């Protein structure tokens, strides 16, 4: 079932920030942390989650600030500042709310996402 879709080149990503991709009608926010995770190149952390903010009801999460809260990698919604765990999609302020998470990797300079597979054990695919 593993179907990795090429999304864009790694050069299209914004370092330590997010972009949004359109994949089979789904809006996916992709966050790449080459500087802050202290690992340039293929070891840099990369995460993919849904772009839709369920509190603000708008497609904006790719434009949120990323970082970590208590060790969990998070994105903060730019609208009302709720935090979402980038590995699990769970909202830190309201654990009943969860956004989709997707498997994402960088392969030969190409960013790929697998819509059918979730990241394993909360660890994002590299």
């Amino acid at each position, binding site marked *: 079932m593993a179907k990795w879709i090429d999304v864009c080149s790694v050069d299209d990503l914004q370092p*330590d920030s997010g972009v*949004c991709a359109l994949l089979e009608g789904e*809006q996916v926010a992709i966050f790449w942390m080459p500087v802050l995770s202290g690992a340039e190149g293929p070891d840099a952390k990369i995460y993919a989650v849904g772009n839709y903010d369920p509190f603000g009801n708008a497609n904006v999460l790719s434009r949120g600030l990323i970082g970590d809260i208590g060790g969990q990698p998070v994105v903060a919604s730019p609208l009302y500042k709720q935090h979402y765990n980038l590995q699990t999609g769970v909202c830190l302020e309201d654990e009943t709310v969860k956004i989709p998470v997707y498997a994402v990797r960088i392969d030969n300079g190409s960013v790929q996402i697998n819509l059918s597979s979730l990241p394993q054990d909360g660890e994002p695919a590299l």
Partner: protein
Amino acid sequence: MSEKQTVVVIGNGMVGQYFLANLVDSIIKEQYQIVTFCEEPRVAYDRVHLSAFFTGTTVKELSLVEDGFFEHNGITIHLGDKAVTINRVAKTVTSAKGLTITYDKLVLATGSYPFVPPVPGHDRAQCLVYRTIEDLEAIAAAAKTGKVGTVVGGGLLGLEAAKALMDLGLETHVVEFAPRLMAVQLDDAGGAMLRRKIENLGVIVHTGKNTSIITDGEQCVNLMCFADGEQLETDIVLFSAGIRPRDELARDCGLEVGQRGGIIIDNQCRTSDDSIYAIGECALWNGMIYGLVAPGYTMARTVVADLAGNEAGFTGADMSTKLKLMGVDVASIGDAHAKTQGAMVYSYQNGDSEVYKRLVVSQDKKQLLGAVLVGDASGYGTLLQYCLNGIELPAYPDALILPHRSDESVGLGPDALPVSAQICSCYDVTKGAICSAIEGGCMTMGALKAETKAATGCGGCAALLKSVLDSELSKQGFAVNTDLCEHFAYTRQDLHNLIRVEKILTFSELLHKHGKGKGCEICKPTIANILASQWNEHILEKDHLGLQDTNDTFLANMQKDGTYSVVPRITGGEISPDMLIALGQVGKKYQLYTKITGGQRVDLFGARVDQLPHIWKELIDAGFESGHAYGKSLRTVKSCVGSTWCRYGVDDSVGLAIELENRYKGLRSPHKIKFAVSGCTRECAEAQGKDVGIIATENGWNLYVCGNGGMKPRHADLFATGLDKETLIKYIDRFLSFYVRTADRLQRTSVWMENMEGGLDYLKSVVIEDKLGLCDQLEQQMQYVINTYQCEWKTTIEDEAKLKRFRHFINSDQPDDNIVFVEERGQIRPADSDERKHFKLMEIA
């Protein structure tokens, strides 16, 4: 329910107004139709702080009545109309203008008048009194031609009046009949110390002087002759020899009055007529007239309670006072003169630092009966609590007034106070009320003041209030943590210093050296902001891009549906028709919702992220530049049209506004900054509601600082007067640089200043007197920011790398299909969720 009864209040002074405010706040409000007469041409104002009128406080600022108070509460006020007769049989009040109102209940709050001794010549020209704003205007007018002013009366009010004369630049004398100043409150040694301090300030004090006649002077308008043969030439004679109750209305209608005046009241503040109450300085309770505002307020509350059928009584008032007279702290508590049987006295006198303190204690040394403090009244709050609450004194009571030179604290901690202890006497706020406000979420002095009104009257209890707040917060487990966030164990000010001193240029360098983890949405924008205000690199440079809030990232303001609004700079609100047309054309072309902002510019809403660079290309080609509406930075400098066009304009407010906006545009700061410039004191630009406000006067520019609108509006404080433009700009440079350097994250200038130890005075000492020796640095930093200004949008549209970010999808040119607009009043607006469903259905169909 029966019909509403009518309560008529005669007098809209401090106490009359306080009564009205309490009545409309009470549950019986609906039972009464309220009518009030006010003899003066304006509604109640703060007579306690009257002398501030001469140092720039406006009549409006002195007002005690919120805008719309009478209208909102359905109170009929007859302004400038004096009540002249009361008919107790018909229960009517008739006014000078001939109005007759029938009352069910009548409240006399007629106040007092200044006593003028019947000395021959007391009614000569420039012999004045000090009570109303009209009196102040007469004094100011007389001071224009005179050089010497003399106050008759060395009491509390007399010394206030002397300060007013000093402020007007007159050679100032105080003539007192008693052998010492403030004879009622102070003992001989305290009075002598006060005299010495006041004389050092330039006031000439004459005690033991009985004025026998006032006649023509030679150098001055008047000559005062004293019983001991001495004489004094003076232009102004200002009588401040005590007050007399205004009881003429009561006398005329046969109410009982005291032998030496005053309307006799019982413990419910009822006069000899059950339907008539008297409160404040016109009332005589138990042979006493209370000339302070706090007892008057207590009487007002008593009447409201009595009308509501509640048990309440006025049982006398504590006459303790603390005030600052010409910068000298003076306080008197309880039995200052040790008249109590067996009372013992401790005193401490320090000639060098000009401090005098005296304690009066009970025979058994367990209770504090009274105290006098001159030169240092910092112990007032503690001593007053000992006295009022009968708290047992320490074994050696003199420890309370002796200077403590080690770390030991002898003050009475807030925890030692009972819940019933009155912290604020002006508004009768107990420690219990303060604690419950804190439990209810008031975590700052500002919030606490707004909620309880404590420390908003005379302000004497502010220090005590703060200590109660601190103590309660720490009890609730709020170890006051000032760390910025979990990634940086520093305050914003610390980080600013680290960045400046260690010349740190990027977030990752700072995180590596002084932080931990990966950062968050708190520290990233804060540090991006500090880096920008210090080094002023473009905020979308590679190292900074990931730190910015979405508004800064896209140089526009995100709205609820994820679209953005665009605000080009319109300096000073001045715009040519051609520019306005260009703006309109851009709005029309991109179908943007267009609205005028409060800051005199135009906001264009509904731009998709991919449209932003195109919109800005056209705006920049038309001559616009970024308005920084998206940043924590200078927003607008609002202006009125000024002397160029306005009949009343004193100076060119638009010209100055444009110059200032161009000077400070692009400056990144802890929060947004707003300016305004008014061309005259009519203040059409509302400069006193801004972080920096400037008002033109005939003597130069007046500078106001630290005001704001918003959730908790604050009037700006007068910072400096009569400035030329060069000095004005120098002060603003320093003020802004100091704010940028020392404020907390998202702290407006108002809160910054309020939390500053020493407040406005301290800020003045830093900015005007250069107390910290920082002014050169502050000015240089501002000049650096000004020199490195760039229009962020112009740089962005010229740089392909920066433009890459401005698209919704990285892999498609489609727009976001969740953005749906509908039309309203001829313009677009975001569709609501129902409308959006409908839209989707139509698409599917």
